[in-house]
């Protein structure tokens, strides 16, 4: 009974009582296309009727991709993904908190970064030709790329390249971004797997580093980092003197020199945290469209389908099926490259296309937005 009060608050806050049970959420949900038992509407209904001890809620809360497509379609506008996040926080003290993929190792890495005494060495990707600084106005928030690079080295994706490419782009603009050797994880995945306490510690440590380095503008090349820094780091009590931007938003604001060379076609996978959570749809498209020929997938922009997982939670056959569907959609555009703006989308889709039985149908080149832009600079230099 002691859980009744916070639960009611959550139902109130997210206006779940307003659900008209139209079922549009289930119709749109990428997970519901493959897992016939999953339905956002039913989760809402069971939460209202039985609370969080309902077996259905207990299980499906952790299945939700939190991609926010249902929110996009909901006629009432119930922010279902955020509602799920709040419910997950109620399960914070429970032994079962979803099935963490990769043995929970990634969450361990993130929680370790919350230890104040830790002295990380995360700048080994900074090659001599890159110009970076210790203090200054612009900060490049790298995120977990140095860890992912090693963790996913078997996949053959170079995630550190996103970081080097981003700095190269900023250098072209005459910016020598601050990169922190002791930057911490933004905490996104911990918050979305119900660990608010560690999230707060990470937030605190990061904010301290930002203040110490005297930065004013924070640039990230990751949809999740920019969402968390922009929307979840500010609180009502303290001033938040930083402007947070995704690389694509930043480049849109500046006069970035891009040479138009439409010799290859690309298609763009909207990361949920960049697209639906922040409404950044146009900036990456404008950049891509000005470099290469952009072809849209059937589900794109606000209706984009998920890459299959979020917060390193529950990678299963449903994820695989969604990833395969998504890759087939990308193949259907007859594009040469699949571009995304989130390292996790890249990891998930690369993993799915490496299936030995389906590699013939599914394989296509996959790149981060930063890399595509940086490579367009290279061709400028050559010309």
């Amino acid at each position, binding site marked *: 009974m002691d859980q009744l009060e916070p639960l009611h608050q959550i139902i109130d806050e997210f206006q779940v009582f307003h659900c008209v049970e139209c079922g549009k959420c289930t119709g749109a949900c990428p997970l519901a296309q493959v897992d016939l038992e999953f339905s956002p509407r039913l989760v809402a209904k069971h939460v209202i009727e039985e609370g969080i001890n309902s077996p259905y809620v207990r299980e499906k809360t952790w299945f939700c991709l939190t991609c926010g497509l249902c929110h996009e379609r909901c006629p009432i506008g119930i922010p279902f993904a955020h509602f799920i996040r709040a419910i997950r926080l109620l399960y914070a003290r429970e032994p079962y908190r979803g099935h963490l993929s*990769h*043995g*929970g*190792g990634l969450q*361990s*890495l993130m*929680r*370790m*970064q919350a*230890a104040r*005494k*830790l*002295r*990380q*060495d*995360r700048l*080994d990707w900074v090659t001599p030709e890159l110009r970076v600084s210790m203090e200054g106005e612009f900060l490049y928030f790298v995120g977990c790329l*140095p*860890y992912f690079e*090693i*963790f996913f*080295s*078997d996949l053959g994706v170079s995630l550190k390249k996103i970081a080097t490419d981003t700095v190269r782009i900023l250098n072209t603009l005459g910016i020598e971004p601050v990169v922190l050797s002791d930057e911490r994880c933004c905490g996104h995945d911990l918050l979305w797997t119900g660990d608010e306490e560690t999230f707060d510690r990470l937030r605190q440590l990061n904010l301290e580093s930002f203040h110490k380095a005297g930065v004013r503008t924070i640039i990230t090349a990751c949809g999740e980092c920019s969402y968390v820094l922009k929307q979840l780091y500010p609180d009502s009590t303290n001033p938040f003197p930083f402007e947070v931007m995704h690389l694509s938003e930043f480049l849109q604001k500046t006069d970035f020199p891009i040479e138009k060379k439409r010799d290859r076609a690309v298609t763009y996978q909207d990361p949920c945290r960049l697209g639906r959570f922040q409404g950044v749809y146009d900036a990456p498209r404008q950049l891509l469209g000005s470099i290469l020929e952009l072809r849209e997938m059937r589900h794109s922009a606000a209706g984009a389908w998920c890459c299959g997982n979020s917060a390193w939670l529950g990678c299963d056959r449903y994820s695989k099926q969604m990833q395969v569907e998504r890759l087939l959609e990308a193949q259907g555009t007859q594009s040469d490259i699949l571009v995304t703006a989130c390292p996790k989308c890249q990891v998930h889709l690369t993993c799915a296309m490496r299936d030995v039985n389906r590699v013939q149908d599914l394989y296509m080149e996959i790149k981060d937005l930063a890399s595509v832009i940086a490579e367009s600079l290279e061709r400028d230099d050559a010309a």
Partner: protein
Amino acid sequence: MSSFDNNKGPVLAFFCNWAPYRCLLDLGKSGRSLPRPIHPVKVMCAGRVDASILLYAFEKGVEGVMVIGCKEKECRYGPGPQHTKKMEEHMRGLMGVLGLEPERFSAMNYASSDTDRLFMDIISFLHSISQLDRSPLARGG
């Protein structure tokens, strides 16, 4: 081993059920016991111990971890030692970024007759950890 401060956190040692665990039994028969900080964990194959398990141990504040497996061609299941080798590579990389000293981790292979070598290696592993400060992840440390 007397130099190892008992107030420090534990050191986890994963023993493969086959050759290394046989060494451990032989150690007991010969009247030697494992130094106090060592917490042995028996697993069926050292190849099963992946980076996530070790990261979790470090997260919980252990001072070091050892993964003790069979020799390359003596694995009962086949690929165990190769898995361990790959995992070691990943783990060393991740520890490097985290800023954890490489001395805190060892992955070694033994035959069932290597009891003495195993014992000496454990002692020297503990000795090298004792030269370090407490783990930055240790509770209340």
